[in-house]
């Protein structure tokens, strides 16, 4: 991904994070930050308004890191398409 594509993806993901419950959105942002540190990117979509759940699609990098980091960050559930933050 080019830097420009990364910025566009970040902006799109932040729109999804902004829809979520405040603290849950912050934890998703932490996950995105940790993934980005490791050159891994996902695209968020269909966030539940004021909720703790968001869908995602893998974009590039190490897909295994997604569930591993989500568990470290104590997410309630993680699948290949869905993230749920503890509430």
């Amino acid at each position, binding site marked *: 991904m080019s830097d420009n594509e990364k910025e566009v993806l*970040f*902006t799109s993901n*932040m729109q999804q*994070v*902004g829809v979520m419950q405040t603290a849950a*959105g912050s934890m998703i*942002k*932490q996950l995105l*930050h*940790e993934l980005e*540190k490791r050159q891994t990117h996902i695209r968020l979509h269909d966030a539940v308004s004021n909720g703790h759940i968001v869908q995602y699609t893998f974009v590039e990098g190490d897909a295994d890191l997604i569930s*591993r*980091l989500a*568990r*470290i*960050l104590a997410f309630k559930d993680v699948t290949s398409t869905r993230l749920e933050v503890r509430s």
Partner: protein
Amino acid sequence: MKNALIAVSVIAVLLAVAFSYMLAWSSNKDQIAQLKLDLQAAEAQRDSIHQAVATKDIRIASLEGEVATKESAAELLRARVRQLENQRQSQQREIRALRTIDSLSAKFQATYPEVAELVFVSEVQVEGLGIDYLLVPVWFAETFFLEHEDAQNYRAQRNLLQNVDGLQQEISGLQNEVIGLEREKNLLFQQGYDKAFALYNTCNTDLRTHLATPPRFQLLGNRSTALVSGAVGIALGFSASRLGN
């Protein structure tokens, strides 16, 4: 002797008729005067009501002006609330748009200058992966709890106040409807009163005109009365002639 009695009787009848006529005429004049006084009193009452209505109309116009001013002020405050809500959403988007740890730290320090010198970021190893943490003095965490409680409470207060404002606007609408109906009712009363007064005025004038007309004798005004009277006269004359014989 008989002729003298007849003459006296005729004069007595004429005097009785004249006296009755004079008495009736005098009574009519009294009634006319009373009717004039009644009409004057009714006119004075009508004028007084019109004056009172005019005074209240002026007061109503003044109060309506005050209401319009306060409604404008309330609408400005509502617009200000909407502006603040837009500002809040914009600020939230700005925070979510923070891209780097440095910009996040700077925002934290600006928001909480009390701990600006004490906050730093550290990578903590968890299950073999380094996770970035923001370190703050432990009891500073209370700030987050209290501000979280504040936010929830203020949000609840805002929602209730919006409901109150909505109800007030509804009440205001209903009150306006009541005022409109009161106005229609008052108009109907006024129209009814004016009609009744005009009718009374006409009746009063007609009656006075009628009473002002001198009484008239109608000796043969009614055919049946004339026939009955004629028959009685003939019978009396016949009886008198038999008594005379």
